[in-house]
């Protein structure tokens, strides 16, 4: 089927980010002094477990960042040779999850339910020519558990069996995956030795293989049964308009990742440039830059974001012709949100860089470069910039989780992502209104909670390890601490 690829603005930036990360990794490979701190990150069990989880989230987010418009089936009798494309923009993830996305119920249903959540009036066909009766009962769902003839008897066995099948499938898959992973990352003779596997079992390998593999098996044990179950059920229930909650949660991942990463990426050039300039050049340049960021900083972040998003809303509503599809409009708003979040959060990094550049400019090697007549820009680029990169890296990874959390709050305030865009914030916001229902509709909230916690917690754990590995101050402190423990 022909498709029309669509590159949204955020998609393009995600690809750019991917290229930057790949280039950075390639560069680090050849530099021992840069590899060393990453090795320390790789030796932290918590960080590597978190990385496994993060990698899965990133995979979901990347699959959701390849967009296209599927071609519509040619209308009968249509003469034009140009294929017509759907207005809806889909992603690869949508295609993979089409069994979830394309099976809407009418309204709420509980996780794994076979019947709707609320009673409705159902028309029963009359028996033996008797007139049809009307009963108030829970109607069967259109898709959830539709393959069961008698849900009351079969449901429990079916769910248990499917879960068991999923778990049984997960274990061999895990064994294969672990073998492949371990073999790919270790030299052959090491993998062949018994001692290595013993060490792995006791958790004494240099890289924390045990923690990684345990995380992997846990994730697989969750994911595979859920995948099998979702063929016939709505594993996490459905929301008000009958959309699968699991699908929503997976779609939210991209929004969260985009906000968490692009925000810092967008503003990174400015904060690096201004921070280093202020610290290195000092004098009036420094005063001006300091004045600039203090002023921006004094406007309360939420209010500045609210003001900017209100401004954007006016722009969008007065220029509807700029955005042909609703996905493009939502995407533009997401990008704008990233930019404005960046404007409110870049000042912290800028101040840190200024302080570091102030320190570095007094060091001997910079003085020597000055004495040789190296130009100021070249000194900043070649001598200052590489030596503040660890600060940039730490602040990027530390900011990520805060930004993901901020998105939820902003969407609640009404200045977050476009209401049509699926995100954790919009999920929580929609679910919040149903708190008062009896019985309570809890599954949307619970799903958003679990997915967000998994994402933010693993991001926090990973960020901590990165900070510990790259921040010289922390490292000295940790060594002191370790020494004291040995003394005690």
């Amino acid at each position, binding site marked *: 089927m022909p498709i029309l690829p669509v590159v949204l603005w955020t998609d393009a930036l995600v690809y750019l980010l991917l290229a930057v990360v790949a280039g950075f990794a390639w560069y680090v490979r050849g530099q021992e002094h840069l590899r060393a701190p990453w090795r320390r990150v790789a030796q932290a069990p918590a960080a590597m477990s978190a990385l496994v989880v993060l990698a899965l989230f990133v995979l979901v987010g990347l699959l959701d960042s390849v967009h296209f418009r599927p071609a519509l089936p040619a209308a009968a009798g249509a003469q034009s040779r140009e294929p017509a494309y759907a207005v809806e923009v889909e992603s690869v993830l949508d295609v993979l999850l089409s069994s979830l996305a394309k099976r809407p119920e009418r309204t709420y249903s509980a996780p794994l339910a076979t019947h709707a959540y609320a009673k409705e009036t159902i028309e029963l066909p009359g028996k033996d020519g008797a007139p049809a009766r009307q009963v108030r009962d829970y109607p069967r769902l259109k898709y959830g558990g539709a393959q069961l003839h008698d849900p009351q008897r079969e449901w429990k066995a079916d769910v248990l069996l499917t879960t068991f099948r999923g778990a049984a499938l997960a274990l061999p898959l895990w064994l294969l995956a672990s073998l492949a992973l371990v073999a790919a990352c270790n030299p052959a003779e090491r993998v062949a030795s018994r001692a290595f596997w013993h060490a792995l079992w006791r958790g004494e390998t240099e890289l924390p293989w045990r923690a990684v593999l345990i995380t992997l098996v846990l994730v697989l044990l969750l994911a595979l049964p859920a995948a099998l179950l979702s063929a016939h059920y709505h594993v996490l229930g459905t929301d008000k308009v009958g959309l699968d909650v699991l699908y929503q949660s997976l779609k939210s991942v991209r929004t969260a990742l985009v906000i968490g990463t692009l925000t810092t990426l967008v503003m990174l050039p400015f904060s690096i440039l201004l921070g280093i300039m202020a610290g290195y050049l000092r004098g009036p340049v420094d005063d001006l830059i300091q*004045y*600039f960021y*203090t*002023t*921006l*900083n*004094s*406007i*309360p972040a*939420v*209010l*500045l974001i*609210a*003001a*900017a998003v*209100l*401004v954007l*809303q*006016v*722009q969008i*509503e*007065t220029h509807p012709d700029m955005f042909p599809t609703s996905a493009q409009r939502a995407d533009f708003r997401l990008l704008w949100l990233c930019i404005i979040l960046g404007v409110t959060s870049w000042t912290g990094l800028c101040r840190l860089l200024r302080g570091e550049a102030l320190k570095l400019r007094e060091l001997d090697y910079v003085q020597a470069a000055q004495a040789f007549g190296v130009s100021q820009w070249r000194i900043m680029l070649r001598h200052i910039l590489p030596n503040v990169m660890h600060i940039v890296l730490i602040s990027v990874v530390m900011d990520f*989780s805060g930004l993901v*959390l901020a998105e*939820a*709050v902003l969407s*609640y*305030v*009404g*200045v977050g992502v476009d209401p049509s865009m699926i995100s*954790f914030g919009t999920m*929580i916001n929609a679910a*919040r209104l149903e*708190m008062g229902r009896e019985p*309570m509709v809890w599954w949307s*909230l619970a799903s958003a*909670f679990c997915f*967000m*916690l998994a994402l*933010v*917690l693993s991001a*926090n*754990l990973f960020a*901590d390890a990165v900070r510990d590995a790259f921040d010289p101050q922390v490292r000295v*402190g940790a060594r*002191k*601490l*370790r020494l*004291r*423990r040995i003394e005690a």
Partner: protein
Amino acid sequence: MYAYIVRRVVYAFFILIGVNLITFALFFKVNTPDDIARMQLGVKYVTPEAIAKWKAERGYDKPLLYNAAASGGQKFTDTIYFEKSVEMFRFNFGLSDDGRDIAYEIRTRMWPSLALALPVFLVGLALQITFALMMAFFRATYVDFWGVVLCVVMMSVSGLFYIIGGQYLISKLWNLVPISGYASGFDALKFLLLPIAVGVIGGVGSGARWYRTIFLEEAGKDYVRTARAKGLSETAVFFRHVLRNAMIPILTGAVVVIPLLFMGSLVSESFFGIPGLGSYTIEAIQSQDFAVVRSMVFIGSLLYIVGLLLTDISYTLVDPRVRFE
């Protein structure tokens, strides 16, 4: 020292002018009053007359910066910039887009905000410091390890979930306090207990972890080793020396948010139905009332700048080196 403070005050005033210019540009230049009027009146089917009338009623029908039609000093005062932005320095915020006096709303609404935010700040700070002190005192033990784990988990949970969880558990399941609402005087207490508890718990994770690093940094300094070498007990070292010295960065760091307490919390106030400035702001954002948002941006920045000033002053009080610079 007074010269230093005067210098900071003058600097703060310039920052306030900068904020004023930025908000003015954002609200009137990027987004002209015509756009706002069109949006308020509904985007389609708007006649130019309706827009002109809307603008005239709210005083947006003047030139932005320079009124050539007026005479004398009025060339500058009879403009949108002067009437809507410069007047803010006199705390004259004008009317909101639905015609109410913003200054009056702010005066009445800041007290409920303060009633919520001040206890959250004080109790939260005390709890964070206690927790951090405990972790630092038992550093490099399981108490410390699991304490940090708890902190990281707690700071990984969105604040919205603390509110939703608290409302569900305490108010709905156990029926201890009302879900939301507010009353004046001492009746407010039962409405405030839950929001305060939620606010305190929501902030413990990141706060305690941050203060723990400050305590540890302080505990690694040379004078602490000297104190131990003198033969002081670990308890004495910690509570007499480390705690006192670590309180300096902690308290000077906390000073900056004190004025902002008047602004209240956006999310918590609107969830719990407390008629403070936070819920006022959120309502204004949702109804796209630009006049109110503009005023709140100004007040928020003003309070933040006051907080910065207080920080500077508190530094001069606790650190004599700043005084002599």
